[in-house]
């Protein structure tokens, strides 16, 4: 039981890691591949690519880490590995 439980927990942890890194990859790399065309669009009056590297991607990273750490806590608790602090 405990070995299977540990394995299931790790599988879920791993999927969450891959999902998190996929989102990270989009905001840190993919959008900047298209910087010059994105800049034709605008957001809050800023050119879009400029906006994304000035604060858009940065904000996305903050939200992403809060979200994924919350998600990981859920996974830990489901498998009885939760901690109280």
């Amino acid at each position, binding site marked *: 039981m405990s070995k299977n439980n540990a394995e299931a927990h790790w599988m879920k942890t791993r999927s969450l890691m891959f999902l998190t890194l996929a989102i990270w990859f989009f905001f840190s790399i993919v959008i900047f591949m298209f*910087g010059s065309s994105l800049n034709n669009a605008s957001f809050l009056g800023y050119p879009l690519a400029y906006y994304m590297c000035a604060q858009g991607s940065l904000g996305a990273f903050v939200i992403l880490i809060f979200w994924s750490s919350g998600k990981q806590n859920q996974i830990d608790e489901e498998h009885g590995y939760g901690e109280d602090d």
Partner: protein
Amino acid sequence: MFKGNFIDNLPKIYGTYTGGFLVFCLLMALLEANGVSAKTIGILFLVFTIAIYALIGILSRTMQADAYYVAGRQVPTVFNGMATAADWMSGASFVAMAGGIFYGGYTYMAFLVGWTGGYVLVSSLLAPYLRKFGCYTVPDFIGTRYGGNLVRACAVLVLVLASFTYVTAQINATGTIASRFLGIPFELGVWVGLISILLCSMLGGMRAVTWTQVAQYIVLIIAYLLPIFWLSNKFGFGFFPQFMLGDEVARLGELEAQYGLVKNSAADIKSAGVPGGLKSISVSHAGVAEGGMAAWKFISLAICMMVGTASLPHILMRYFTTPSVKSARRSVAWSLFFIFLLYFSAPALATLAKISILDPNLATGIIGKSITDVQAIGWVKEWIAVKQAYIADFNGDGILQLNEWFMRGDVIVLATPEMGGLPYVISGLVAAGGMAAAMSTADGLILAISNALSHDVYYKMVDPKADVAKRLIVARILLVVTGAFGAYIASMRLTGILGSVAWAFDFAMSGLFFPLVLGVWWKRATRQGAAAGMLLGLAAGTAYLVYVAPAFMGNTPWLGIDHLRFGLIGAPVCLVSMVVVSLMTPEPDAKTQAMVDDVRIPSGKTIL
């Protein structure tokens, strides 16, 4: 005044401290209004803040190993976030970043993406697992996971190389600020900076550094944000500048088109006698260059900075200090939030600084005005006198053109309050903020180096029987020696602030990223594989750096991978050699595999 234990009272303690600091700022403003000289106010700001940090450092003294190495593992999530943010934001972030954006525009902003995105890697790949491991230092993890002194020594080597490259830049920055605001020579300023740094860390190790870093974060964030909000409101650009400067960014585009972005030839610059290191604006603020190569340059720099972030030991070791694995993870999110507050303001600061001198409709504008008038402005005179600014009338028309105004990028943040016509008290505040940023990072780095030397080299390799008192004395001696050596190198002025900072990330990325990540995520990784990865990765990266860096051989970069990006050579070599060698050697024993399984489960006792 405070009942109960220290940890429960932290919000009250730091609340009082923040209030006290704001009262101090008001007092300084009052002194300025009553005719106290600018110089005195600058000195008071530096002396007062450094005295507070030193006091915290002395109050946090300890003779316990747990407190000295990991602050007793009881730093609450949010406070650890603040401490990490101060640890992270160096002299380069505070002093040089807005200046970099000022001159480099969009292209430079790859650093912003890189220095924040790395935290996603820290939180999902490393921090919670290293916390569960319960190590004192990063090489401690490598040494235990892979087993043996060879891998431990390799990890110490990479750590020392990366952190030392970084720390000289920080001591350099403290020296620059101390010399400018205390009015002493740079070489002396460096040693004054070092003594201030050591006062914070020597007696209490990680515990002292943690509580001074929280205090330093509060000073630096106030110092960074206050002038931005003030300037934006003063010029009527919007009360929340980070979100409201869209029109000004567009206006900068118009002004660039109107003035023309001219790149001066090296010969012109030389014959006009422009001091070294000073630049004129020649790159568009928000424009993005067309083409794949430009996009690749942006992305490759961002990758190096992100992966480097996730391998820098002085950051990773901050997550050893939280009470649980869960709080380590959460603490990464808070760290990035506190870093974000400064980073998303840097472009706003650069925009404000740029528009306040470029726009002829503003009273502060200097471009397009007569050179004689501009030279009579107070701050222009002062910065020209110290060779940080320069005017070269290339076309001889007596009018200041955009390409005729030169300034050092590193002084933009320090000079912006004056450029925008704010009272001097703000400049004093900004100096205190820059000092806090450089000191907090230097403290974290010096501690990372000396802890690795005292714990991993001295205790684990040289004298495993040493008692706690002896270990902690050795740790402190190494701390002082490391700092003194860093100050000595800095006093020789070998590097500009930013070149060497980027190198630290590349060194760390070349040697440590994959051994750390695979140590948790790949059970099959073996001792021989890790050793090969660290040594070959580091060797390949360093060899490429020597091959390409202008200061060394200066060859043409391959695929645009220049000396700021040499980690892109080192890290893949590290990965490939680590995987190949691991697969060629027998898999790790059952005990090691069980240990990796245990690291992956957040609850329960630490492994060490």
